[in-house]
């Protein structure tokens, strides 16, 4: 499932995929695959993404629908 929340949060932080990847320490492709829902990150990576984008796990990775 496509992760639109993460993409929106990243854009709100004024970060490109490459900049976010560099901050977290992963490749740009990994960020892109997470956003397009093709890769399920571990909880460790999810927490790192949340901390970088200043969001909670619920705000980025919980789908209430």
């Amino acid at each position, binding site marked *: 499932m496509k992760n639109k929340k993460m993409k929106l949060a990243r854009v709100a932080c004024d970060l490109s995929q490459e900049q976010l990847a560099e*901050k977290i320490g992963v490749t740009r*492709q990994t960020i892109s695959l997470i956003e*397009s829902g093709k890769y399920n*990150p571990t909880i*460790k*990576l999810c927490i790192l993404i949340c901390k970088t984008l200043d969001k909670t796990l619920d705000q980025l990775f919980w789908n209430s629908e």
Partner: protein
Amino acid sequence: MSFTRSANKLPNKIKDERIQKSTSQINAPMYYIILILTTISLTMKIALQLNPLTYVLEIIALISSLTYYTLSLTRKNMLFIKETDEVITDIKNSIKSNSYELCIIIFIVGQTILFISWFIYPLIPIQQVLSILSYTVMVVITSSYTSSKLTKKGLLVTWRSEKEKITIIKNQKIFSTVYSTVSIIILVVGIYLGHIGYISPNWSSTIIGVALGSCIIPVILFFNFKKTVLLNEKNANKEVTLAENSIEDKDETEIEA
């Protein structure tokens, strides 16, 4: 207080879990292949009654990698687990991948040490050739398979930013240049020492052989590395574009429905 501070601090560098997972998945079956090849090579060398120095690396590789594999599984209480799920498969793949890499390191480092040992305990040339050939075949067969698979998925050479990519290429060029220079110096010294009769012609030819062999690797790396990096980048982007396109197609179909 200190816990909160450390928890909020982001690490400078973490390894990409997606790349590690995919690499382990590709490397894992190669552990079985290298185990089979090593056993065949060991059996043949013992049957041909070759000098134990020609098969010492097979014994070290088999014992150390199997010990590592068994101990790692035992430590995680997974030695006799028959059920598998995603997590168990990932952990097992990672252990197999590490065991495979351990075998490759033993063969490469061990072969270099053997080269040096032949100056002190020279073997019959045919035994030297057989020894080098067996290790080279094992390393080349398995690593060419894994590297081609990794390049296809864009996982062989990875970087986080364009800056890092340029640094990787630059470091590779420096490494190749230093390696080539050292090999050429060894080659010249070997020829000179053989020429003035300081060392025996056999030693001289071995030194020349080693230096020539060492020259080939950096030259190939030097010319191919940038090409490999670009191909890797192209394939990685292709994977991402494919993933993004498939999601967009899905979205469009959902809207139409």
